[in-house]
């Protein structure tokens, strides 16, 4: 019987096209794995079985006829529940959208469907993508498949778990301050945040409009490149999407690391980092050197201001983006024969969780009259300084290599009492969103307790090919990405 955990998209695709495997078998295997792994709470909504099989059967017909819709035809994929899927409930992991079923697909959803992908369900995440551990979900926390007493990372925890635990061969997440890269690191899978504007945000429930990007999770870099290629590209419905051609990411992969110029920023090796994390990352740097890359220490001097900058800009944009959840046109409503104002208050008080409320309040404050200059405007200026740091480094480097997080996955409940502590988990990922750069995370080791450690590779704007090539070279020289978590009971 097919074991999904053993397969990559590339391998499954080859088997499907050879006829050694059918899309229907794959779909059934995925649904079985999801059912068997419920304690991981990776999914908020599992797609209807009949619907899933119908999509798989359509893929099988195309495959038998020798006319697959593309490399993703028949491949079971999962989608983070902040991304709209027509006809399939989309909750943003919030009570306020508990019964919301969109009549429209996000552009990325439509592109996957057009490629024949079989969508098996909507994955768990932090509510409205606000969080670093997937503990802020109104549908319960998701759990790390390597150790279910630990967090999978957030906000796209469910999407990372689904891939790590073999419930889907790939998945989509979103990344605003590290929400793809951190779970990828904690769950030992590959996760990528593309350059801002590379992938359409239409249909993606907005958290911070100038920071959000959709990106893939996969078992390896080749799969990651496949998924990226399927979703990337200009969308006239998203005015922030770049009108630039999409390169063939798969074709760029095997270039190797010889001559690659790697920058290592000193600010990303801080006191208080878990020693094994630092060791694994430095080990990865040596691996690159062994492959013919050159490395140089650099400075990104404004790194220490990134978290503050982020929490002003992101919360400000979020406070405005979440104003639409008012119980008028969709979503939950609490009114009890109240006045309009009471209806608004009660609906939002009941519908939003504490972290969401916290960020809305912070953001509203940052934009309010008398404080706008001191907070929002100030943060946007510091953002310019942070971007300049990177522009300067990329003048003489191809990629930047860093750890993804100061530690491996922490335990559930460990950081929930102190939101500020939680925010600091994003310290190595956040600057990359502020600068709009592409960043990929892949496994580079495990700690003593068997928890994965992720390496982050950052590129210049629209430098996805460089990042993928570097990642692929590292992966080809190591075995970390082949390890799978123990199968959930």
């Amino acid at each position: 019987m097919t074991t999904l955990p053993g397969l990559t998209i590339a391998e499954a695709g080859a088997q499907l096209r050879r006829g050694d495997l059918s899309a229907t078998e794959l779909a059934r295997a995925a649904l079985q794995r999801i059912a068997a792994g419920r304690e991981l709470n990776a999914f908020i909504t599992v797609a209807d079985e009949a619907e899933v099989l119908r999509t798989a059967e359509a893929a099988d017909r195309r495959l038998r006829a020798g006319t697959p819709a593309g490399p993703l035809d028949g491949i079971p994929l999962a989608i983070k529940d902040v991304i709209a899927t027509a006809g399939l409930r989309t909750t943003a992991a919030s009570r306020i959208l508990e019964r919301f079923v969109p009549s429209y697909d996000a552009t990325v959803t439509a592109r996957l469907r057009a490629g024949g992908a079989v969508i098996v369900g909507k994955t768990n995440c932090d509510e409205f993508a606000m969080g670093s551990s997937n503990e802020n979900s109104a549908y319960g926390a998701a759990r790390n498949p390597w150790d279910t007493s630990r967090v999978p990372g957030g906000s796209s925890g469910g999407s990372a778990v689904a891939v790590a635990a073999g419930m889907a061969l790939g998945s989509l997440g979103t990344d605003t301050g590290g929400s793809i890269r951190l779970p990828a690191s904690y769950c030992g899978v590959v996760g990528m945040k593309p350059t801002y504007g590379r992938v359409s945000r239409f249909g993606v429930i907005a958290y911070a409009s100038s920071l959000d990007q959709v990106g893939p999770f996969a078992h390896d870099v080749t799969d990651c490149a496949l998924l990226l290629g399927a979703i990337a590209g200009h969308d006239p419905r998203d005015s922030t999407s770049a009108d630039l051609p999409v390169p063939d990411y798969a074709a760029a992969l095997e270039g190797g690391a010889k001559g690659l110029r790697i920058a290592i920023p000193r600010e990303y090796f801080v006191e208080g980092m878990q020693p094994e994390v630092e060791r694994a990352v430095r080990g990865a740097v040596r691996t690159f050197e062994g492959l013919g890359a050159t490395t140089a220490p650099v400075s990104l001097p404004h790194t220490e201001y990134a978290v503050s900058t982020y929490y002003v800009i992101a919360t400000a944009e979020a406070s405005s983006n979440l104003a639409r959840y008012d119980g008028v046109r969709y979503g939950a409503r609490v009114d009890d024969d109240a006045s309009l104002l009471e209806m608004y208050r009660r609906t939002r008080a009941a519908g939003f969780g504490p972290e969401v409320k916290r960020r809305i309040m912070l953001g509203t404050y940052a934009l309010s009259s008398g404080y706008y200059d001191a907070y929002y405007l100030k943060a946007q200026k510091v953002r310019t300084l942070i971007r300049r740091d990177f522009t300067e480094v990329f003048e003489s480097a191809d990629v930047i290599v860093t750890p993804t997080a100061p530690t491996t996955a922490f335990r559930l409940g460990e950081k929930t009492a102190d939101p500020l502590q939680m925010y600091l988990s994003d310290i190595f990922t956040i600057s990359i969103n502020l600068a709009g750069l592409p960043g990929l995370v892949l496994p580079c080791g495990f700690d003593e307790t068997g928890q994965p450690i992720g390496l982050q590779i950052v590129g210049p704007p629209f430098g996805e090919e460089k990042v993928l090539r570097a990642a692929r070279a590292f992966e080809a020289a190591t075995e970390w990405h082949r390890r799978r978590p123990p199968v959930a009971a």
Partner: protein
Amino acid sequence: MTTTLDAILTYIDKLNELDTSAVEPTAQVLDRLPSWRDDVVTNGEDTDALLANAPARDGDFFRVPKIIE
């Protein structure tokens, strides 16, 4: 909630360590400009589908508690 917000705001005050008087705010993270939409009607939406998620409706209207002027 207030104590955590206070702590966060105190942390955010770090930004004041920097002199940004000569710095422009980041308006947009994009270098290129998109083209604009042509003025054509492309709406083919189904009103029922759009009202399907409405918490309260009255015919084709959305219904809300009265707005007191």
